[in-house]
C-alpha cells in the first residue's frame, strides 16, 4: 500500500506542472478573450492592460503581441509606431502558436467586408485559388474559441459568412483569405467568428487550404455557387493583377450616376499589397507588415461602414487610409465613392477624384459634376410634377437643394429649382411657400438672364405662378379667433393607462371665504386604475401623493353643499328653539 502511495505521489508531482500550465492557459485564454472584446469595442486602454498582463505571464504569447501591435497602431491615445513594430516582430517570432489566430482574424476581416462582394455577385460565392487541396485538422486552441452554431453542428472544418448584400465595395472581400490577413496566411484554416457588427456565419464551407507558409498569387476570381462552398482550383483560373496595370482595368464599371447608386467597381488587391502577400512572411520588414495591416484595417472599416449605409463613417475611414498611405490612390478612390454614395457632395467627390488621379489612378471614378447630378434630379422632379406625385417631386428638389448647399453651380439652375418648388408648393397646398418660391425664382431669373441668357423658363411662366399663388392665398379662409375655433374632443380610453412616471407630488384644494367648508376641501378620487395598481394607489392616497400622468377627478358642488349645510343648521336651530320653549 505504501508503495502505491509513493507511486501516486510521484505521479502527482509529475503531473503538477502540466495541471498548473493548463490552469494558467485557461486564465490566459480568458484574459485574451476579454482583451479581444475590449479591443473590438475600441477600449484600447483596458485591452492594452489585459494583454500586457498576459505577456507578464507569457512573454511569448503571440496573439497578445499581435493585438498590442494593433492597439498601438489604431488607438489615437496610445499611438506608437515603434511599439507597433516591436510587437509585430515579437508576434512573428512566435508564429508557431500564432497561425490559428491569424487565420481567424483573416476570417473576421473577410466577414466584415464580405457583403462587398455583392457588387460582383449577389449570390453566394466560391473562392477559387491555385492550391492543391490539403485537409488541415483544427488545433486545440482553435477549438476553444467561440464557434458559430452551424459550424459546430455540421462538424466541418469551418464556416464563413457568404451571405452578400449590396451596396459595398469589393476587392479584399472577394478574394482569398490571405488577402485579408495582415500577415500572409499560415497553415490551416479555422472557424469563422461573428463580430459585433457582423452577420451570422451563414453557410457551411468545405475548406481546404494549404499548410505551407509562402503563398502564390492571391487575387482570385469569384463565381456564383449555390452551395457556397470554398474549394480550390488550378492557377489557370486566377487573374493576378499586373504590377504595372491598375487593377480597375480588370473590372471596368459603369459610370456612377445618381439613379444607379451602386457600389464602387470591384478592384483587385493593390499591386504592392499583392506582391507583399506573395512573399515569404519571414522576409517582410516590419514597415511592410505595418503598411499591409493599415491597408487591411481601414479597408475593412470602409467596407463595413458602406455595408451599413454609414457613408459618413466610410468617408472618415477612407480619409484615414488616404493619410496613412499617402502614395497610394486607394484612399482617395474609396473616399470618392463614399462621398458619391452619400450623394450630396459633388465638390468633395471632385476633390477626392483629383487626389486619386494625382496619385496615379486612371480608371473610372464617380461623376463629380454637380450640374449633371442636378439635371438628373430636376428631370425626375419634372416627371413627378407631371404625374402630380408632389411628394416624390419634392424629394428630388430637396436633393438639388443639398447639392446647391455644398457646391457652387450656375445661377440658372436656381431659377428652375425654385420655379419647380413653387409648383410643388402649390400642389401640396402650401401657398405661402409657393409665393416665396416663385418670387425668389423671379429674382434669380433677372440675375440669370443678365449673366448668361437664361432660356429654360420664361418670365411669364414665373409671373403666372406668382399670380396663382397670390390668388390661392387670397381665397384661403382666415382662421377664426382662438375662442371660436372648432373643438377637438379627446377620447379617454377605459381603463385609462398613462405612461406612469416616477415623479411624485401632492395637491390640496383650498376654498377661501367659505368658512363652513373648512378645513380645506380634500377629496381623493375613487380607484380608477387597473386592479393591479389598486394597492399602490391606496398607499398614495394615504400619503396624499400623485404620480406623473395621473388624472385626479375632484367632483363637488359648493352651492349644493352650503345649501344642505344651511338647511341642516336651520333645522337644528329650530329644534333648539322648540326644545327651549
Amino acid at each position, binding site marked *: 500500500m505504501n508503495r502505491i502511495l509513493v507511486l501516486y505521489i510521484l505521479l502527482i508531482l509529475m503531473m503538477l506542472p502540466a495541471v498548473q500550465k493548463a490552469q494558467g492557459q485557461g486564465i490566459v485564454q480568458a484574459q485574451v478573450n476579454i482583451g479581444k472584446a475590449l479591443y473590438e469595442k475600441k477600449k484600447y486602454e483596458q485591452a492594452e492592460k489585459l494583454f500586457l498582463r498576459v505577456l507578464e505571464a507569457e512573454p511569448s504569447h503571440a496573439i497578445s503581441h499581435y493585438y498590442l501591435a494593433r492597439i498601438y497602431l489604431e488607438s489615437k491615445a496610445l499611438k506608437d509606431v515603434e511599439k507597433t513594430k516591436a510587437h509585430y516582430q515579437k508576434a512573428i517570432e512566435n508564429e508557431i502558436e500564432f497561425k490559428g489566430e491569424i487565420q481567424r482574424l483573416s476570417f473576421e476581416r473577410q466577414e466584415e467586408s464580405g457583403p462587398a462582394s455583392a457588387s460582383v455577385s449577389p449570390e453566394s460565392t466560391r473562392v477559387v485559388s491555385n492550391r492543391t487541396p490539403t485537409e488541415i485538422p483544427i488545433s486545440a486552441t482553435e477549438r476553444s474559441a467561440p464557434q458559430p452554431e452551424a459550424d459546430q453542428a455540421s462538424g466541418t472544418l469551418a464556416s464563413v459568412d457568404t451571405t452578400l448584400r449590396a451596396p459595398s465595395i469589393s476587392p479584399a472581400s472577394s478574394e482569398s483569405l490571405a488577402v485579408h490577413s495582415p500577415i500572409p496566411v499560415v497553415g490551416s484554416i479555422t472557424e469563422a467568428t461573428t463580430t459585433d457588427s457582423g452577420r451570422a456565419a451563414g453557410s457551411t464551407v468545405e475548406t481546404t487550404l494549404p499548410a505551407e507558409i509562402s503563398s502564390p498569387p492571391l487575387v482570385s476570381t469569384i463565381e456564383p455557387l449555390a452551395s457556397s462552398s470554398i474549394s480550390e482550383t488550378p492557377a489557370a483560373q486566377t487573374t493576378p493583377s499586373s504590377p504595372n496595370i491598375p487593377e480597375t482595368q480588370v473590372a471596368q464599371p459603369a459610370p456612377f450616376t445618381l439613379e444607379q447608386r451602386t457600389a464602387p467597381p470591384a478592384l483587385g488587391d493593390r499591386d504592392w499589397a499583392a506582391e507583399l502577400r506573395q512573399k515569404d512572411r519571414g522576409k517582410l520588414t516590419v514597415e511592410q507588415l505595418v503598411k499591409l495591416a493599415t491597408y487591411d484595417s481601414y479597408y475593412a472599416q470602409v467596407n463595413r461602414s458602406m455595408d451599413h449605409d454609414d457613408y459618413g463613417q466610410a468617408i472618415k475611414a477612407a480619409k484615414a487610409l488616404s493619410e496613412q498611405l499617402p502614395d497610394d490612390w486607394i484612399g482617395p478612390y474609396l473616399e470618392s465613392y463614399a462621398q458619391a454614395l452619400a450623394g450630396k457632395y459633388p465638390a468633395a467627390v471632385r476633390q477626392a477624384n483629383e487626389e486619386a488621379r494625382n496619385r496615379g489612378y486612371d480608371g473610372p471614378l464617380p461623376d463629380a459634376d454637380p450640374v449633371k447630378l442636378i439635371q438628373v434630379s430636376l428631370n425626375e422632379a419634372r416627371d413627378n410634377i407631371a404625374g402630380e406625385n408632389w411628394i416624390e417631386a419634392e424629394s428630388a428638389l430637396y436633393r438639388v437643394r443639398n447639392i446647391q448647399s455644398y457646391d457652387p453651380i450656375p445661377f440658372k439652375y436656381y431659377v428652375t429649382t425654385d420655379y419647380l418648388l413653387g409648383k410643388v408648393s402649390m400642389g401640396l397646398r402650401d401657398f405661402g411657400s409657393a409665393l416665396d418660391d416663385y418670387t425668389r425664382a423671379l429674382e434669380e431669373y433677372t440675375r440669370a438672364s443678365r449673366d448668361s441668357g437664361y432660356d429654360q423658363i420664361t418670365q411669364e411662366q414665373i409671373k403666372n405662378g406668382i399670380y396663382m399663388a397670390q390668388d390661392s392665398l387670397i381665397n384661403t379662409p382666415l382662421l377664426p379667433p382662438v375662442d371660436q375655433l372648432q373643438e377637438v374632443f379627446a377620447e379617454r380610453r377605459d381603463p385609462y393607462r398613462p405612461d406612469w412616471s416616477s415623479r411624485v407630488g401632492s395637491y390640496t384644494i383650498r376654498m377661501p*371665504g367659505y368658512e363652513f367648508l373648512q378645513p380645506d376641501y380634500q377629496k381623493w378620487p375613487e380607484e380608477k386604475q387597473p386592479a393591479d395598481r389598486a394597492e399602490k394607489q391606496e398607499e398614495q392616497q394615504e400619503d396624499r401623493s400623485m404620480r406623473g400622468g395621473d388624472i385626479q377627478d375632484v367632483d363637488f358642488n359648493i352651492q349644493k353643499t352650503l345649501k344642505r349645510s344651511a338647511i341642516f343648521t336651520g333645522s337644528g336651530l329650530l329644534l333648539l328653539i322648540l326644545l327651549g320653549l
Partner: protein
Amino acid sequence: MQYTLLLFLVWISVSASERQVFAQTVTAETPLDQVRRTNDPVEKQRILRTAIREDSANVEARILLGASHYKVGNLEAAMEQFGAVMALADTTDINYADAEFYSDEINRLFKSLRIRVVDRKISALGYIEGIRLLFRYPRSLTSEQKFRLEYLEDEGKRRRNEFQFSSIDADKRPYLEIPYFPVVVSLDDVSYSKYSLVVGNRRYRYDFNEEKHDSVSVLWDENWQLVERVPTDLVKIEYPSIYTFAPADTSAHFTLVDPKSKKKGTYIPADKEVDLVLQESTYANKEKRYNRVIKGLVVVAGFIGLLGTR
C-alpha cells in the same frame, strides 16, 4: 486491485484539472461575449436588459444597450441608459467617458421640435392616433440623425408619446413636442435651407437650425383621433367647469376646458406640492348667500345656547 486504485486516482486528478480550466473559461464570459454571438438587435437588447436586471450597476451592459438604442434612433431610451452610467460609474471610468460622449453628441445633433395645431381648440392633452408625418431636411444629416428620422416616421417603432400634446404655448394653443429632432448643423446659407413637414397631402416649411427653432403650425387632419393621456411630468386635476382653480404659488400650470363633459382640467407639475385655490365660481353670489345664512344661523344658535345656559 492496486493498479485499479492507481488508475482511479489518476483519473480523479486529470478530470479535476480539466474541470478547473473549463470553469475559468466559462466565468470569463461577459454579456459582451454573448452579444457578439448574435446578430439580431432585438436579441442583443434582450441579453443586455437581462444583464442589467441581474446587476443594475453593470455599466458596460448599459453603455452597450444605450448605444444600441442610439443606433436605431430611440434616443429617450439611449439617454436613460447613458444617464444611468454617468450616475453609476466613476468619472475616470472609460464607460463614463463613453456615456458623456454619447450624451454630448445627442445634445449637439438633436433639439426639440414643436408642432402646433392652429385651426382647432384642443380639449385635453393626449396623443394623436394615426398621425403620419414625413420630414425633409435641407442638408445631409449624419447617419444617427437619419436613423432617428426613420424611427420617428415609423409608426410601429416609435413611442406614442413622441407625438403627444405636451403643453400650451403663449397663444394658449397646445403643441406636440418631438424630443430629439435632428438639427442641421453648420449651415452656410440659411435662406435656402428650410425643413419641410408633409402631413397627408399638405406641406409645411419651417426653419430648424442651431440659431432658429421654429414652431411648425399645422392644420388638423380629419383622419386624426385625439386620445387623452397626461404627459408624465404633469398631473391633471379635473373638476366642474363652473369653477376656476389656480395654484397659490407661481407653479407652472394651465387649464383646458372640455365642453363635452362640462369639466375643466388644470395641469400641474407632478413632482410638486401644490395648493389649488378657488379663484372663481359661476354661482359665487348664491354660495356667498348660503354661507352668510349659515353664519347667521350659527350666531343665533350660539346666542340661544348662551341664553339657555343662563
